[in-house]
């Protein structure tokens, strides 16, 4: 099954479960959790159900396109539902069937795996899902965001699309994946992958990046202080990406790291506060 086919099958499946299908949020994002469609929506009481592809940039994982499994940018398929349906685990497993998998011929196993995201003050409890030993999904019940106990909790399901497609196509290198019948992953991504790495590891200028971080941060804080949510939150996303670039360049010392994280955490908390204040006043669904 082609990469693009997998995406559309998953979209279709979760559409039938009542999810809003969204285009990826248009910012450089490190993980599906940081997307405003997740972080800002798990706060508060209003129901929410969405699914979207999230291209995720993790500069430190980049290998100039030379490693068959490690990527500067990979694709997550993110499902986020609040409150979680009672049969959500079965719903998830059955989603694999929609990809043409005959479950009786395979093994799915849920192995304890909890996560924390320091800059978001977020915590989740759950599992990594293994398909015949291969980790294909993170399945998590979100417990905490911006330091708030989430009531109700949300469920977050993150499929690692490259891993999943490697499995379905029986390939050993991501670059051999068929995106569709004619185009491979390599055709689409290899040059970009190399260039991103060249920039991140060799050509980026830390002093410029530090400057950018400061500018984005101060503008973000200024906007968030005025209670303007989305433009302000987007500056946090920019900061987070700049931080990741600096980190992959080895330009951040330990003391600075703690400091940077708490600066971003502050922006995240301000954004969360705006979301919660608005919820009190606004009766519409959070969509």
């Amino acid at each position: 099954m082609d990469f693009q086919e997998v995406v559309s099958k998953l979209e279709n499946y979760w559409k039938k479960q009542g999810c809003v299908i969204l285009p990826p949020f248009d910012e450089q994002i490190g993980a599906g959790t940081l997307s405003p469609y997740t972080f800002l929506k798990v706060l508060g009481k209003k129901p929410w159900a969405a699914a979207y592809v999230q291209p995720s940039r993790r500069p430190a994982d980049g290998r100039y396109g030379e490693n068959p499994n490690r990527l500067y940018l990979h694709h997550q398929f993110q499902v986020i539902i609040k409150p979680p349906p009672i049969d959500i685990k079965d719903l998830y497993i059955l989603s694999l069937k929609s990809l043409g998998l005959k479950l009786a011929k395979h093994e799915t196993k849920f192995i304890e795996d909890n996560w924390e995201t320091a800059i978001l003050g977020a915590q989740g409890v759950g599992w990594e899902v293994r398909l015949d030993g291969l980790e294909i999904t993170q399945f998590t019940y979100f417990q905490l965001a911006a330091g708030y106990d989430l009531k109700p909790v949300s469920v977050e399901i993150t499929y690692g699309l490259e891993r999943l497609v490697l499995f379905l196509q029986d390939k050993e290198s991501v670059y051999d994946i068929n995106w569709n019948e004619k185009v491979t992953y390599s055709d689409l991504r290899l040059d970009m992958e190399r260039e991103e790495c060249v920039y991140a590891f060799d050509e980026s200028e830390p002093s410029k990046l530090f400057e950018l971080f400061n500018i984005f941060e101060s503008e973000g804080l200024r906007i968030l202080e005025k209670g303007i949510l989305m433009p302000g939150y987007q500056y946090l996303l920019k900061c987070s990406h700049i931080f990741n670039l600096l980190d992959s360049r080895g330009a951040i010392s330990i003391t600075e790291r703690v400091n940077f994280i708490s600066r971003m955490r502050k922006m995240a908390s301000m954004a969360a506060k705006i979301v919660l204040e608005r919820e009190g006043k606004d009766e519409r669904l959070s969509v």
Partner: protein
Amino acid sequence: MRDFLCEIYTEEIPAKIVNDATTQFKNNFKEKLKNFRLHYSEIQGFGSSKRLVVFLKDVSEKEEDAFIEIKGPPLKISIDDSGGKLPPYSKFLESNELNEEDVSIKEVKGAKYIFGKKLLKGKEAKEILKEATLYALKEMHFPKSMRWEENNVEFIRPIRNILILFGNEVIDLTYAGVKSNNLTFGLFIDSPVQIKINSVNEYFPKIKENYIIISFGDRKKTIEQRSASLASSVKGIPDYNEEFLEEVANMNEYPTPFLCSLKLKDMKIPDCIVASVIKDQLKSFPIIDARSKKLIPYFISVRDGTSDFIEIVREGYQRVARARILDGNFFFEEDKKIPSENFVEKLSEVIFLKEVGTVKDKTDRLVKIAEFLSSELNFSNEKRENLKRACYLSKADLVSNVVREFPDLQGTMGGVYSKLWGENNEVSVAISEQYLPHFTDDSLPGSSTGKFLSLIDKIDTLAASFISGIEYSSSKDPFGLRRLGSGVVQIAFSTGLDRLPIEKLIDFSMDTFGNKAKKEENKKGEIISFIKDRTSAVLKEKGIRYDIANAVSCLHIDFIPTFLMRSEVIMAHLKDEKLEVISTTYKRIKNIIEKAKFNEIKVDEKLLFEKAENELYKVICESKGKIDEFIDSKDYEAVLSMLYIVEPAVRTFFDSVLVMDEDESFRYNRLSLLSNLRIIFESFADFSQLVFDNKAI
């Protein structure tokens, strides 16, 4: 009489928690049922990754009736002299719903009172079982609970179904939004398999038919037996410990082990990377050659499910193993290009503890402590240099690519790299052993340099943690301080030394923190008493009775290396009458000296007046040198026999000489004699701690 069964069906419980959760659930039931007079013949608990089960056999329909006696008003205000019933009497009857025939008169402390015998009707079993179920669920405690539904109930993982049957009757209750029923689920093969259970006796056979092995013991046995035979088919044995086996057995409801092969051709990948991928990532068992203990290119995985289509599952596991191992090898090749100095320098970018700096700072401290310890123990030049070098390189692997990918390989990879860097065998072996022991009864560093590196590292970490004010308790010890402390003790035991300058070592170690430790004067005492605490704990784990552990733990901390041997000698002589005698004698000596607040030891021979004190003085002089010699050569059997020989002279002394003589000079001289004796006894143990008459168990 009916059987009772409750099954809590959940999403996957973390494998390491399953057994504890099973026990808690059963014990909570048991505890609650103790409050009732409800009879049952047996209680059993079962657990797996998806369910916790309690089964009660032959439960009565009702709680037994019982009578209680209620004290009423005094007789004189209840019944008058002519036998007439007064108002307090009838009020008492009325308010307690009693009849005339339930009443009796009893005397309490000389006064007569009215008493009523009241019938307590037994509750229905159904009600009690419902109460017990709710109690058992609410009173479960986990290291990390979660919430998932609107009532915000906390549990280890979401509860998705509750089956409660009393015979063939469902006991109704709702917990965490789930209403009880008589349904359960079998192995998920292609879709959820719902099973209806009509009565308790159907439960076990029906879930078995649906591929659920509910007993941990059965799952474990299946895995053990099958794995052994699969491994022997390729002339090897599976490599796992008990803890890991337990984890795997609780990760699968229907475990089916299968053999996988590693197709790595002739690549030179360190065994530890291969083993780590197999164990930690794939939760599978490496296979080793029975003789050489070296890995052979196979491993055993366990499928949660039947053997149908197992070749497809095998293909998947093999592919993941291969990809991860190649990945690890890629990092290994990268690391090989980096010189050791670069690794060590990079440690200054890794924080050790926020309050006390980086791992590089720690490395520098370790080298200083190594220097100090080497002079204290008169190490040869070669030994000193080896230890310092091992300390210097000990943490280098923490910034290697491989350890970042495989954190469990810290130390082990250090050993591999240091060989590549051309370090000698003593140094590289020491580095690979530095984190041992990981738990009680884990293997200890085998090399001498490894032992001292491990000891120095642990003492430094303890000092750093105490200075940073890190808290620990029996339930919460996030930094594993207690494990580190036990490690110090176990290593001390294994040195074979007669003493180890632990106090000075702690002192010196605190000094290496410079000003940070200055304000923390009292921390040194805390560390010493912490290590002593751990000593008692380790001794107890090694089967030493608590009072004996206490008796040797009273000695100076520097004698820790000998504590186990001393304890074992006392343990072996517990049945000796003489042991109790010397304990009593020693107590007497100690009491007299402490009461007199006396601490001189100089005996003036000219003042030895009585025959018995002369005798005693002679015995002391003769035995003292010998006992010291035996202590130095750690011949504790001989020390004890010497004490047995000394003791009668002490008794004769007490029988015929008055210690607290009116004459001050006699008195002091006799007290000095006793002080000398006290020192002799205490060179072995504090015998006053021993408990006799089977009082200690």
